[in-house]
Every structure is written in C-alpha cells, then in structure tokens.
C-alpha cells in the first residue's frame, strides 16, 4: 500500500512493488510512424539509410566516411542470396581506408566488417560494439540506448 503526503505545492507518494503490479491505465498518444519530426533509427520509413543515426557514431562522417557509405549502401540494397556478397570490393576499400587511421578505427574493426556482412541491420538494432563505445554522442538520443556517457 502506498502512502501519500503533501509538502506545500509538492506531493510525495510512496509505493510498494505490489502497488505497481497492476498495469497502468495511463493513456499515451499513439505514435505516428511517419512523423517527420521524430528521431529516426538506422533505417528511414522509406527504406533509406539514416546516415545521421547516432548509432553509426562517426563512421559516416570520418575520413573513411564515403567508403563506409558506399559499402553499407551496397550491402543494404543487395539482393543476392548471401546478402552483400556483391559488395566485397567496397568493403575492401573501406577496410584499406580504415587501416590508414588506426587510432580512429582500432583493429577490432577487422572483425566488424566481417560480421556486418552477416548481420542484417534492423530499425533499432544494437550498434556494433566498438562503434557505440567510441562515441559518446550516441548515448543521448538513440531510441534504444539512453545510457549516460556511453
């Protein structure tokens, strides 16, 4: 059972676990999936890639940004049986570029690029670990990740 008290203009309510067990009857406004204002995830409603997604970190904006975009776009639109198998050249270019900047793209990236060809990115997919860890900006507003200072 909860108890409640008022201190001036402030109300304080103490609740136990049991008090909160029943589902909430608070009404929330239904989300409009096509709301143009809302923050979007990795994939936009029209199917394009959102290069500005915080989950990508600095990948699309760094010195190897254009190579990354080419490789990832190719993978995203690839219709091959093994998705992305026609994009090997792009990924190789990207890897070569990244090797030139070892402190930006630490060598774990090697495993990154391989797994990327296997993993299909979802709307709210958890980002590749090294990407999210190297980027604090992602913590603030990506829909899935609201940790501080990630």
């Amino acid at each position, binding site marked *: 059972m909860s*108890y*409640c008290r008022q201190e001036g203009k402030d109300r304080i309510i103490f*609740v136990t676990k049991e008090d909160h067990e029943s589902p909430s009857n608070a009404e929330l406004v239904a989300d409009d999936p096509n709301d143009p204002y809302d923050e979007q995830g990795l994939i936009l409603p029209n199917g394009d890639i959102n290069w500005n997604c915080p989950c990508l970190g600095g990948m699309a*904006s760094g010195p190897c940004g254009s190579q990354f975009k080419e490789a990832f776009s190719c993978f995203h639109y690839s219709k091959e049986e093994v998705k992305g198998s026609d994009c090997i050249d792009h990924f190789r270019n990207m890897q070569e570029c990244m090797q030139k900047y070892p402190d930006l793209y630490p060598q774990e990236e090697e495993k990154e690029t391989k797994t990327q060809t296997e993993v299909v990115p979802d709307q709210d997919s958890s980002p590749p670990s090294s990407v999210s860890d190297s980027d604090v900006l992602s913590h603030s507003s990506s829909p899935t990740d609201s940790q501080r200072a990630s």
Partner: protein
Amino acid sequence: MLKCRAVWRKLAPLARSASTQCRHNVKTALNNGRRQAFVPATHMSTGPAGGGGSENTLYVVLVGAACLGGGAYAYMTVRGDSKRYEERISELASRSAKEAPESQPPVAPEPEEAAPTSEESAPVAELSGETESASAEEPVTETPPEAAEQAAPVLAEAEPVAEVPPEAVEEAPPVVEEAAEEPVTEAPPAAEPETVQEAPTEPAVTSLPESAPAPEPVSAPLTLPSHAPYLLIGGGTASFAAARSIRARDPGAKVLIVTDEPNLPYMRPPLSKELWFSDDPSVTETLRFKQWNGKERSIYFQPSSFYVKPEELTSAENGGVAVLTGKKVIQMDVRGNKVKLDDDTEISYDKCLIGTGGVPRNLQVIEKAGDEVMNRTTLFRKIEDFKSLDNVSRNVKSITIIGGGFLGSELACALGRRSSETGLEVIQMFPEKGNMGKVLPEYLSNWTTEKVKKEGVRIVPEALVKSVAFKEDKLEILLKDGRQVKTDHIVAAVGLEPNVDLAKSAGLEVDSDFGGYRVNAELQARSNIWVAGDAACFYDIRLGRRRVEHHDHAVVSGRLAGENMTGANKPYWHQSMFWSDLGPDVGYEAIGIVDSSLPTVGVFAKATSKDTPKAATEQSGTGIRSESETEATAVTPVASSTPAPVMEHKDEYGKGVIFYLRDKVVVGIILWNVFNRMPIARKIIKDGEEHADLNEVAKLFNIHED
C-alpha cells in the same frame, strides 16, 4: 593632375582670349587680305601672325607640359607600388626565414625573376600528388590564368618538399599561418591590378626559400581557406555534433571549425565528474576516463587523425572537418556572408553555425576584491581550469565552492571524495536552502544535501556573499548574515554568461529573458546563420521558448542545426535530457523543464529491506499511514500486513520518478536513481497530455525493478 587642372583653369581665359584674338585677327586679315591669294586660315595657329602667335605658342607649351606632367605622375605611382610590393615580399621572406632556425637569403622579389627560379626548384620535388592544392589558390586570388599556371607548378613542388621532413610539418602550420595570412589578405582587396598579379607569385616567392634547402624545417605555402562552405564558430559540443551531422548528410562536405581554444573539440561533463574519480595520476595529461560500462575513453570526441588540416580542407577530395584553433571570430558580415578573425583574416561561408557557448559568471564582490583574491579564484569551464584546480586541490588546505547547482555540487562531491585521502577541507556555500535548490523540490533538495555532507563537504546554506578579502595569507569570505568563512581557494560556479559578442556586428537579436541569440524553432537566426548549444535561445514547440545549458542539448541542437544547414528544416522536437551524479548514492537523469518552483508529484519506491539494509534492523511499530487527499490519487486498498518495516521518521528517497507540472501538464521528469527509462519519459513529455493520476503514469517506469 589637380595641379594641371588648376593651372589650366587659370590659363583658360587667357587661352580663350588668345583664340578669339586669333579669330579676330583672321577675320581682319581675311577682310584685308581678300585681294591676297593665300588663305589666312592656315596661318591661324602658326606663322608670324603677330600677337596671336606668341599666345599660341604658350598654349602649345602649356598643353604639352600638362601631358608630360600626367605621364610623369602615372609612372611614379607605378614605380612606388612595385617598390612597396618588393619591400613587402622581402619582409615576408625574412620573417619566414626567422622562424626557421637558419636564416635564408632574402629572395629576389621581382615577379619576373620568381618565374625562372621556380622552374629551377621543379627538379627538387618528386611527387606531384598535391596538384589539387594549386587549384585551391584560385579561389584565394583572382588571377589571370597564366599567373595561376605559374603558381601551380611551384606549389605542387613545394608542398611535397614540405612534407618530406615530417617533424617540420608540426612547426610549419604556425609559420604557414603567418606567412600565408599575407597572400590571403592581399588578394581580396585587389584594388590595383599590380596586387592581383603579384598575389599568385607571392606564394611562389615564399616557397622559394623553403624549397631550396629541403632538409631544414620547411614552411609550405599552404594557405588557410578563405572560403568554407560550412563555417562553424566555436569548437565545442554543439559544433562537433553539427559537423558530424553535416558530413553524414552532405557527402564530401567541407566543414571548418574555428575555435579560440587550443584544443580539439571535447566533452565537458567528465571534467567535473569522471576525471576526478580516475585512479590514474597522469589523468590531467591523458584526459581519459572510465565510462559507466567500464570502457575507457578520452574526453576528446575524436583523435586528431579524424580531422583534416585547415590548409588541406579546400582541396580534400572527399571533404572533411578541419579545426582552426587559437583563432577568434570578432566580426560577422551577414550580408557579405563572411567573418573576420582576430588576426584580420576573412573567411567567407555559405552556411554558418554559431556555437560560441558561454563564459562562467563571476561574483561582483570577487571581481572588485583585487588581484590577490582573483588569483585564488577559479571559474571552472575548460580543460585548463580542470588542470589548475586539480593542481590547487593537492596543494592547499581548504577550498570553498560558491554555488549550489549542478557544477558546484558535482565539484563539491568530487573534491569531497578527495578530501578523505588528503585531509582537504571542502566547503560549499549557496543562497538556497539545499543543494540543487532551484531544480529539486525542497524535500529532495534537503535529502540530497545530507548526502553531499556525507561525501565530506561542509555545507553553508542560505549564504549570500557580502565581501571577500585576502588577509593573513587566507581568503576571508564575509556573508551578509555575519558568518565568516576562511579558505585558501575559491571556485565560483554561479552560472554561465552566454557569449553573444557577435550579435552587434552581425545584427543578430539577443533574448532579454534568457540571454543568448534568439533563434526560431529551426534554430535559425538569420539567413544562412544558425545557433546551437548554450548560446541559443530557441523556440521549443512543445515547451515554449527556452535556453538550455546541458551537454545532451548541445548534441541534439548541434545535430539539428547541422541537419537544417543541409536543408532539412526540422524544428526542435527531440527532447534533450541531462544527468548528474552526486556521490555513490545519488544519480539521476532528467528531461524537459525541471524547475523547483513548479508543482511536483514524486512517486518513490517504498523502502523495503532490499533497498535499505538499515530498515531491516529497525522496528517501527506503527502501521501504514494512508492519507487520502481531496483528489482520488494514489489511494490503493490498505493491506493489513506489510511485507517489510517502513522507516517512519526519515523518508528514504532511494529511487523514484518526479513529475514537474505546468497547468496540469507534465513538462519535466526526473528519474531518480532509475536508469534506462528515458524513452518513456520522453514520450510522456512529447504527448503533453493532462493525466489525472500520475501514479498510473509512474507505473510505466517500473521503478521497483533495476
């Protein structure tokens, strides 16, 4: 010229009279000489026609003299200009020679000579990969094509040479910046044709002393960009977020960040939190900290290899982000789309972002107190402030923090933690009754203050500083109610003054209520100018006009500004959040308007034996109070038995949710010691609905779970 004109004016009547005299003579001659065969007209201007002749000669002489005078003047002007140019070049050459350890012979300044010697330097260079930089010169100088071609091969050669000694490259930029300033400044005001021609050869000339002795530290004739498609003023969080956003949306974008700090863009929150908790003794140098997930990172957003050098920005094939450090923008010309730096260079832009942030406020009584006090006061904001305060905290016995907000409380906790090891006395004073008095409702602020005290901080609440004096090697702070505090060092954390220095020259509006540049919901101030971060007073379409000084807001608004600079036209919609940690017991995340003057409803998890081990040992006999208020809120059936003893006297606000209401609508939420629920909070604020029972809303947060 004027002399000639004046002289002519004087002589004009004379000349006229002379000519009329001539004509008169002619007429009389004609009349007289009718019988004569020859035509007197031919004799009008020459010949022995009496008095008219001498005046004619005078006329001739005068005109001739005027022409001669004009020609002589023109010649002198041209000569003087070319002499001035030569002197300038030799001065440049000698200046760059001074920077290099060895002095180099002053270069023969004649433009014609520069060309043949540039051909000589051609065999020195091997690579020619830098030909794009030659084209970079063209926007810098309006050159006739052949002059540009002259400059191009020279530049192409000189640059690879400059890069050959890698250590020299580090020294080169400051030299380059200075040497290169001149061609940049001289080119735009190309009033006379000579300077236009001279400009392309200037870089050629400056390259000569460097290209010849290759192994010496060389300054390459790379010029700083005089035009940046995207110009970001200020090198903080908002600018960096905007740069990233622009690069993501505009492939190949060239972004130039201009900052007056010597550092690359970095994040500020760890300066008052994580960096203080680091065990690494060299943390002031490395500036690395451990995140919540255990991984270590630097406070710099990206290492320096992420950025392009400013000199290479214009020629970079895929664009990039360049950071120009140590330069301050002092003037903005909005109609001309250009800014002026403190070293008189001008940079023009297509789109500009102002992310100038702010400067810490100081107390007037401290400013008036004199140098001895000012030298012992820290206004905490930048990396240097962190380094100096860290140093001070190891060497003094007592530090007083004035200010009870986020920064003051965080620093107090950080220093308080350190005090347990070093015996440092940490005092915190503020006008409110408790820590975060302007943010947290009173009960919570009081509770928090007790926690801060447990961190080893001596709290002096309701303190208004009357005066500060330096006596007997100590700072004496006298409060208005008569209390006195003696300390060695003061940290003033009394707010931020947004930096609106450019408002006047740019003609930008400044908000009188919140301070900062007034911008619309899309963060735009005027055509092609956006403002983001601490300095932006913007219109939030859900919560109204406001100005927010938090890290996440800088990220969100910077990102939004970057999107709008690349054509998105999105309003401020995604609410930013903020967080704070006050010691090991208190950590919270918040979103929206969190102002303690608003009515609040706080829903807290009742302390059970799990949450507070102490409670298990206490036996509070009385039953549960359940007070039903006038509104039917939060009244659940009273159970006869209770699972765990409840602390009656001291409420433990271990974890919960606090709603801030404005006209019955939730405008702000604090998640008190509950994490990972920010999206729900964001949704509630976005909805902007009136909820009858906030306890039901609180259920959405599952506060009892971890």
